[in-house]
């Protein structure tokens, strides 16, 4: 009984503390609300089952983000998911609904970020929209800081190209 109560308390804490942030990370990868919600549920379940000691809150947060991204990658690589065709319009509409704890001035940049290849998308998303440092992102994604810097720079160039292209097509 006591164990169940502790478990419930732990679950509530996780939901309250990380649900919104993990949902945003999952959405950046899955690009639709339903899949993002499923991914976050799965990440919490894995966390509850995991018996490895969690050192501190930062470690806990990094573990959850890493697991969330891994689950996303597993789903995206699955044969079923690869057969489905994403709807561009639904991405545009839903990306505006992603809850961010602050106002963003420019939706088109976020949309461009969500369209980036995964190795650029996650570092860029965590750096700009979740305000992670390069050191923290390197820890979460298990990469060297130099690799993250390179991906940030190259991803930024890709975003710039996409925005210029979008501007040009708007002017035509």
């Amino acid at each position, binding site marked *: 009984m006591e164990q169940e109560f502790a478990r419930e308390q732990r679950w509530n804490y996780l939901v309250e503390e990380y649900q919104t942030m993990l949902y945003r990370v999952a959405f950046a990868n899955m690009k639709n609300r339903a899949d993002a919600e499923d991914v976050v549920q799965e990440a919490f379940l894995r966390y509850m089952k995991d018996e490895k000691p969690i050192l501190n809150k930062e470690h806990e947060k990094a573990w959850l983000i890493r697991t969330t991204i891994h689950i996303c990658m597993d789903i995206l690589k699955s044969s079923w998911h690869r057969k489905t065709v994403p709807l561009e319009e639904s991405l545009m509409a839903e990306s505006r609904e992603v809850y961010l*704890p*602050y*106002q*963003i*001035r*420019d939706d088109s*940049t976020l949309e*461009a*970020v969500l369209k980036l290849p995964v190795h650029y998308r996650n570092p*860029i998303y965590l*750096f*700009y*929209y979740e*305000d992670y*440092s*390069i050191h923290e992102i390197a820890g979460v994604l298990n990469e060297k*800081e130099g690799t993250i*810097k390179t991906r*940030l*720079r190259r991803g*930024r160039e890709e*975003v*710039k190209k996409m*925005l210029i292209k979008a501007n040009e097509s708007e002017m035509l």
Partner: protein
Amino acid sequence: MSVQEIGGKGKRSIPDYPNKRTQGHTEVFQESLMQNLKYQGRAKDDREKTELTPCRGEEKTGVGMLGSMAGIRVSAVTRMDAVQAAEVRHMNYEESDNIEIAVAEGYTLKGKWEGSHVYVEAKYDDGRLEAYRVDTGKVQEQTQHRIEQFAVETVEKMQN
């Protein structure tokens, strides 16, 4: 025709190049070189005066690096008045009154209005983290300085 004659003909056929260095040219060049060296020395001295040393790791609290990013280049005269270096506090988005996310330019800005001034934290995608204290009362109306503009926007946002 002797060999000497052939050689002499060839020598005469070399044209006189218009930019060929003459005695006068050399003196002018030396003079301008000296002037350039003098100015470069002065510019270096100015940089040393304004640039501060990093606090820890890659964190910088210095206006010396301010103009290095694209889109936030400004004149040194303006920046010295209103913008001062500050200690980096690692303020998060939730604590900030104003945020600018400039993915294409490679930086984020976070601002907090603190009554007499605005605290601004800038994070760049090369890992630099810088903080400034902006006295918005001293900011010129038509400023092109991005940090100053952002600080003014922060105050306006909080007053509206």
